[in-house]
C-alpha cells in the first residue's frame, strides 16, 4: 500500500537521515529512514513510500543493488532520487534509472523542490 506523503530516506549516515527527515517533516512530509539497501527493502515491504531518497555507497546493500532489487520486485513506478557525494551524479542517477538527482552537499531549497516534484501533496504542518 502506498502512502501519498511518505518519503523513505536511505543513507548509511544517521545524521544525514535525521536532517533530511527534519527538513521534510517541517515541510509536511511523512518520513522513514533506512541505513542500507537491505533495511530499505524491508521498509518498502512494510509500506510502499511515495518517494525514495537514495544514497549510493552503503554497506550491506548499496544503492545499485537496492535499485536493481527494488525495480525487479515492484517495477519502475515509485520514483527514486539519488542523493550522493560521488562525482558525476547525473551518471549515477542514469545507472539506476533515477527520476532525479541531488548532489551532496545540497541546498535545502533544492531538496524541497526535488521532493515536491514527485510527491504532490504535503500534509499540513503539525502545530
Amino acid at each position, binding site marked *: 500500500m502506498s502512502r501519498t506523503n511518505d518519503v523513505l530516506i536511505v543513507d548509511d*549516515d544517521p*545524521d*544525514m537521515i535525521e*536532517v*533530511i527527515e*527534519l*527538513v521534510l517533516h*517541517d515541510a509536511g512530509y511523512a518520513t522513514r529512514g533506512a541505513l542500507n539497501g537491505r533495511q530499505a527493502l524491508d521498509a518498502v515491504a512494510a509500506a510502499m513510500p511515495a518517494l525514495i531518497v537514495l544514497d549510493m555507497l552503503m554497506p550491506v546493500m548499496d544503492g545499485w543493488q537496492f535499485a536493481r532489487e527494488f525495480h525487479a520486485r515492484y517495477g519502475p513506478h515509485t520514483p527514486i532520487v539519488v542523493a550522493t*557525494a*560521488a*562525482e*558525476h*551524479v*547525473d*551518471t549515477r542517477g542514469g545507472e539506476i534509472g533515477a527520476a532525479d538527482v541531488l*548532489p*551532496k*552537499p*545540497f*541546498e*535545502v*531549497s533544492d*531538496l524541497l523542490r526535488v521532493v515536491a516534484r514527485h510527491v504532490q501533496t504535503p500534509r499540513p504542518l503539525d502545530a
Partner: protein
Amino acid sequence: MSSRGEDVFPGGIDPRVLPDMTLREQSAHRVAATVTAVFAVAGMVWVLLTDVLVYAVSNSRVLIARIENDKGWIFISLASLLLYAVTFRGAARLDRVRRLTAAVIRSIGDGVLLLGHDRKVAYANPAALKMLECSASELIGMDVGAFAKRFRVSYPNGALVPPERYVSQRAFDEGGPLRYKAILYPNDGTELVMISTAAGVRMHVGEPAMWVVSVMHDITDSDRLDRIRDHFFASAAHSLKTPVAIVKADVQALLPTASPRQQKVAASIDRQCDRIDRLVQNLLVLARARSRTLQFHQREIALRPLVERIAGEGVWSYRHDVRLDVTGSPSLHADEERLGLAIRNLMYEATRLSAADSPLTLLARPEGDRVAVGVRYQPIPWADQISHVYGEYDDIGIGRSVAATIVEGHGGSISEDYDEAQTTSWIRLPAETGVHA
C-alpha cells in the same frame, strides 16, 4: 697533489683509465703516424750513426760485413721489442676500456638494452634481465614482435603500445633521446611500471643509427605509492563531502526559526560549507588529473541555465552585486559538473580579488565557432599581490589550476582581459555542436 706526491682525482678515479668519449677519430691516425715517424727517424739515425762508427774504426771488409749483419739482428730485435711494447700497450688499453665499459654497464641499476642494426636485442645488462625476469639466452636476439608478445607493453591508461611505437624502435628513425612511461608484464601477475628512454647510436651526425641504447628505469614502487596517495586523497575528499552536506543542511534547517543574528552566522557557516565543498571538488579533480583518471562526461548542454544557476548562488551575492550578461543561447558539448566547477573557481577568484559591493558580472556568449564564458570584476589595487602572499597552493591558486585543467581537457583555453577599471577572466571552449544565437 697529495703530500706524498701522488695524484689526487675527483672521486678517486683516474680519468686516464676512462674511455675517451669525444669520438675524435683523428686521434688514432695521429698516434700511428707519431709512432711510425719516431720509428723511422730512430732507424735512420741508428743506420747512419752505426755505419759512420763502423767505417771509422775498421777497414776490414770481413769485419764490416759481420758487424753489419749483427747490426741487422740488433735492429730486428729492438724493432720487435718496440713493436711488442706498442702493441701490448694499445691492446691493454683497449682491453681495459672494454672491461671498464662492460663493468660500468653491468653495474647500472637501470635495465640497459642494446639493439643491433637488425633491431633485435644484442645485449642486456643484469638489471634488465632481472626486471624482465628472463635469461640472457631468451632475450638476446629477440625482435620487437617477440618482445611485444612476451611482455605486453602498455601505456599507463592500459592501451597496448603498438610495437612500432616502442621508443627503442622509433629511436632508429627519430634519433632521440625519446622517453615514455609504460607498463610491462614480465610474467602473469607481475606489473613493471617504467620510464623507458632510447637513443640511437651514431658515429657521425646525420648517419642512420647503428644501434639503439634503451634504458628502462623501474618506477613500480614509486608509482604504486603515487596511486595509493591519490586514492587516499580521492577517498578522503569524497568522505569530507558527507559531513559538509550534513552541516550545511543542519544550518539551513535552523534558518526558519533563527533570529537575525543567528541567521547571519548560519549564512556564514553555509558559505564556508560551499567553500569547503568547492575545495574538495578541486582536490578530487587534482587527484584524478595526477593519476590520469580524470574523466569528462560530456554531453550537449545549454549554457544559459548553467550560468544562471551559478550567478544565483548566494555564496557570491552576499558581498557583491552579481550581474548576468548572456548573449543568445550558446550551447556546447561539455561535462556540466566539471565546467560548473571551473566557472565557480573563476567566480571565487573574482570575489577574492575585488572589493565588497563592487559589481561581479558573469558573461556568456557565442564567438564564431567558440563559446565564451567570462567573469568580470573590478580588481582591488593589491590584487596582484594576493598570489604572492598566499602562494600558488591556496584555494585561489588551486582553483585556477583546476579550472585550466578542466578547460584544456575540453579543448579550450583561459585568458584575461584588462582595462583601466576591470578585469575579465575568459573561458573559451569549442562549440562543437553549434551555437544558437
